[in-house]
């Protein structure tokens, strides 16, 4: 799911999110920061010491997400994540979070297309207890029928809050469904309502028993702890759980056919407020890149094209032509199956969306044709390296960065080699990925139109294109 946001100030948030999985290793820190090892049962462990404060972040990442669901059971990965807080043979119903809380800790969990993660932030002397509890629910979950049905209502309310009450989120959902013809990324992480309301206890247990196992999980601990301590505690907890030989270490997903037609859609909604547009393109991710440096070049391309007030799109559309009140773009490169380039703009009062779209396309065409300047590239690189240093201030952010990368199959060496990989990207590399991946046929464009009357104005329809393909 993409973050859809229209305020200019939130661009920083978008950037931070897109940076979650990155580790530019700047001069500030030593070349290797994390220690990595494997338990005998195959569970991966990553430890990232930070001794400034006596607390730790403890995370377990499963190599399973909503894109691994059986068709027709959308939302089961996320539903199970909720149900993991119910009970085990040792922990009574609803007590998991309460125990963490009584120990002065905070806990939560989240689900994505490729991964599901559980975490606690606690005082370092509680780490052993957290591992004990997390290991316990990895294999001893107990689900009561009534509890399951009650929680199903909770996820339906969650869907209403996040998606159904929010036209931008609805547009995002529709666009993803149109962008992916075959890949399960087209199905929302939270699920389609009509399938969510039928999910059962048995669906959850089937998913759980197959995917939740130490050899399908990654333990990430950051904070005031040493690798030796983590190894000792992990051996005594997770280490006792037998591996599940049925989990296939290679994750097979239906893949996309060659894209041949640009897709377009219009969502008319009385709650839309402003006229806005989004566009998503299929692109490779760090995992699926065709050649080394490709994903890094895409990151730099979108930083220059669309990130913040110094970006080309913002300067052109918002500052100069004033077609849009805000506009920008982003590259999301941490999907197992692929990445995406995304663009957005909110039309200025009285400006039609096709005009805004043409304005963005002119910026992109210029980059495809003429590339970016050395100065722009240098600034973008500096900015990424600085982001790394800033993020090294936060142990929870570090834990997420390593966990997410590992969950999609990247290694500690990949993560810690990122700054160097970024620094090697040339303006030619950027130009090349721009030409290759700003491909209209691999894109979907969505308009969000405020529509009090239920009738769209003519100018909201897409303009005719000379080539029959819009970009």
């Amino acid at each position, binding site marked *: *799911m993409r973050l859809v946001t*229209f305020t*200019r100030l939130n661009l*920083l948030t978008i950037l931070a*999110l897109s940076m979650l999985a990155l580790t530019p290793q700047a001069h*500030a820190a030593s070349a290797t920061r994390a220690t990595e090892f494997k338990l005998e049962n195959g569970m991966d462990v990553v430890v990232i010491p930070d001794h*400034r404060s*006596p*607390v730790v972040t403890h995370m377990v990442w499963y190599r399973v997400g909503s894109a691994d669901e059986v068709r027709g059971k959308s939302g089961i990965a996320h539903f199970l*994540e909720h149900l993991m*807080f119910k009970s085990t043979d040792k922990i009574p119903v*609803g007590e998991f*979070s309460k125990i963490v*809380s*009584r*120990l*002065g800790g*905070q*806990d*939560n*969990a*989240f*689900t994505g297309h*490729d991964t599901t993660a559980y975490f606690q*932030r606690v*005082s370092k*002397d509680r780490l052993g207890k957290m591992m004990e509890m997390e290991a316990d629910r990895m294999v001893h979950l107990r689900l009561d029928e009534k509890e399951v*049905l*009650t929680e199903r209502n909770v*996820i339906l*309310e*969650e869907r*209403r*809050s*996040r998606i*159904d*009450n929010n036209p931008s989120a609805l547009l995002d959902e529709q666009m993803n469904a149109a962008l992916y013809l075959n890949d399960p990324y087209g199905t929302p*992480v939270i699920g389609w309502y009509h399938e969510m309301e039928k999910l059962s206890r048995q669906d959850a247990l089937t998913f759980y028993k197959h995917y939740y196992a130490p050899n399908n999980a990654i333990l990430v601990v950051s904070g005031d702890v040493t690798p030796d301590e983590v190894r000792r505690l992990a051996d005594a907890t997770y280490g006792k759980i037998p591996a599940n030989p049925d989990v296939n270490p290679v994750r097979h997903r239906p893949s996309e056919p060659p894209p041949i037609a640009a897709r377009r859609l219009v969502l008319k909604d009385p*709650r839309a*407020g*402003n006229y806005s547009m989004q566009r998503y393109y299929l692109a490779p991710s760090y995992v699926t890149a065709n050649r080394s440096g490709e994903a890094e070049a895409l990151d730099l391309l979108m930083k220059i094209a669309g990130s*913040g007030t*110094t970006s080309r799109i913002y*300067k052109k559309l*918002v*500052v100069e032509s*004033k077609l849009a*009140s805000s506009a920008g773009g982003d590259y999301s490169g941490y*999907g197992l199956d692929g990445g995406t380039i995304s663009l957005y703009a909110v039309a*200025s009062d009285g400006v039609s969306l096709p005009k805004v779209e043409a304005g963005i396309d002119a910026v992109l065409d210029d980059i495809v044709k003429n590339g970016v300047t050395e100065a722009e590239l240098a*600034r973008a690189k*500096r*900015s990424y*390296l*600085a982001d790394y*240093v*800033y993020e090294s*201030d*936060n*142990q929870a952010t570090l834990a997420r960065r390593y966990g997410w990368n590992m969950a999609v199959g990247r290694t500690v060496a990949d993560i810690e080699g990122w700054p160097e990989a970024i620094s090697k990207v040339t303006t030619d590399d950027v130009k090349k990925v721009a030409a290759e991946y700003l491909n209209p046929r691999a894109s979907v464009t969505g308009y969000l139109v405020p529509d009090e009357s239920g009738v769209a104005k003519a100018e909201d329809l897409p303009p005719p294109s000379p080539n029959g393909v819009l970009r």
Partner: protein
Amino acid sequence: MLGLPRGIATVVRTVARLNVAVALAMLASVLIPSFSQPAAAMNIQQIQSPGGIKAWLVEEHSVPLISLKYAFDGGNSQDPEGKAGVANFITAMMDEGAGDLKSEQYQERMEDLAMRMSYDDTKDSLYGSFETLSANRDKAAELLKLSVQEPRFDQDAVERIRQQLIANLIYADKDPGKVAMREWYAQAFAGHPYARPSSGTVDTVSKITRDDLLAYHKRIFARDNLKVVAVGDITPAELGKLIDDVFGGLPAKADLFPVAKTEPIPGGSQRVIDMGVPQSVAVFGLGAMPRMDPDFMTAFVVNHILGGGGFSAKLMEEVREKRGLAYSVYTYIQPDRYTSILVGSVATKNASMAESLDIIRKEMKKMAENGPTQADLDAAKSYLTGSYALRFDTNSKIASQLLGLMQEGFGPDYVETRNKKIEAITLADAKRVAARLLKPENLIVTVVGKPAGMKSVIPAALRPVAAPSRG
């Protein structure tokens, strides 16, 4: 690929964003002896610059970063009558050019220096945050100084930001949660500056002029209403010079409008605002003890048990865990400078809103009549004391925490004494304060959506003669 957190991440963010003081009051305590105390590890120095500006400093030289947080008394309650939104406008203008640097030049310079600067407004304060890499400290501080002392507020930048702010307001007008909160304040504080929408309205923001921004800047950016905290790679002498450079040129005295102390209008009311959404959102609240009231801390603990403690809280237990009525339900206490409130929110499908609010009222009443149990109190104390250190694990978080203490008039020793205050709370205290705090008959409720079977119930005495002061 945005994850879907199961729990209360949103709530936590909301609380933290609304008021630094809230988070502080909640967490400023350490008791569990096994915890290393943040205060012990953290040497809070009180410094005075050669120019006479006082600041707190925590030196942390292990990461090459400096985080500076500062606040000027006088937030959006200082907006001139009829010009609601000026403070918010200023927060978006501070990187739009200063001194000789026009907007674009200023922003590129910021990016070249990897300097981070942001502003935020609350009812009572204007917050600034500045972060720099140690290596760029002097140059970044020079840029910050320009913005603090000589913002340009160029007309084209003013118009550009105005369009963004208006787009945001139009967007927010369609967000049931935001509308419910805005209308709650309008209802609770009719006639007081706190009743005004904090970011203004489309109408007021359309009327704000460059002169309004200049006038606000001149009144509010001064030295006698300034609080400064620094954390990171900087010595006391270096910090003294930096804050003299940045703030020394400001006027000695701020020129603040008087703001009267106030309380939410007692007597209770319920407003239903129609919006075509599948899920209604309610905001509910009443008056609470001011920050310096001897019962404040106890009230804080009582609120934690009722609705502030995530999955440990009664409301979460009754509304979500037992009945599956909502994804999110919570309360918090917010002690503003001129009032204090206990306020909460719940979002549920239209058919369930009446039932959910009924449960919430019943739980409040029960807590008022019986108070919490000893086990509830012990669990709350254990969390509030034990989780303290989690608030001090990054430079930036430490700076925010300390700034809140400074603003409330506490000394650095608060960090060490706070735990004892929480521990000293007895069950008798909690019962007494629960009865004093929780008066469901005073509950002011605003609901946005199409809640089944609910309509506005506003006692004649509470109906404002004219529209509340919204301008």
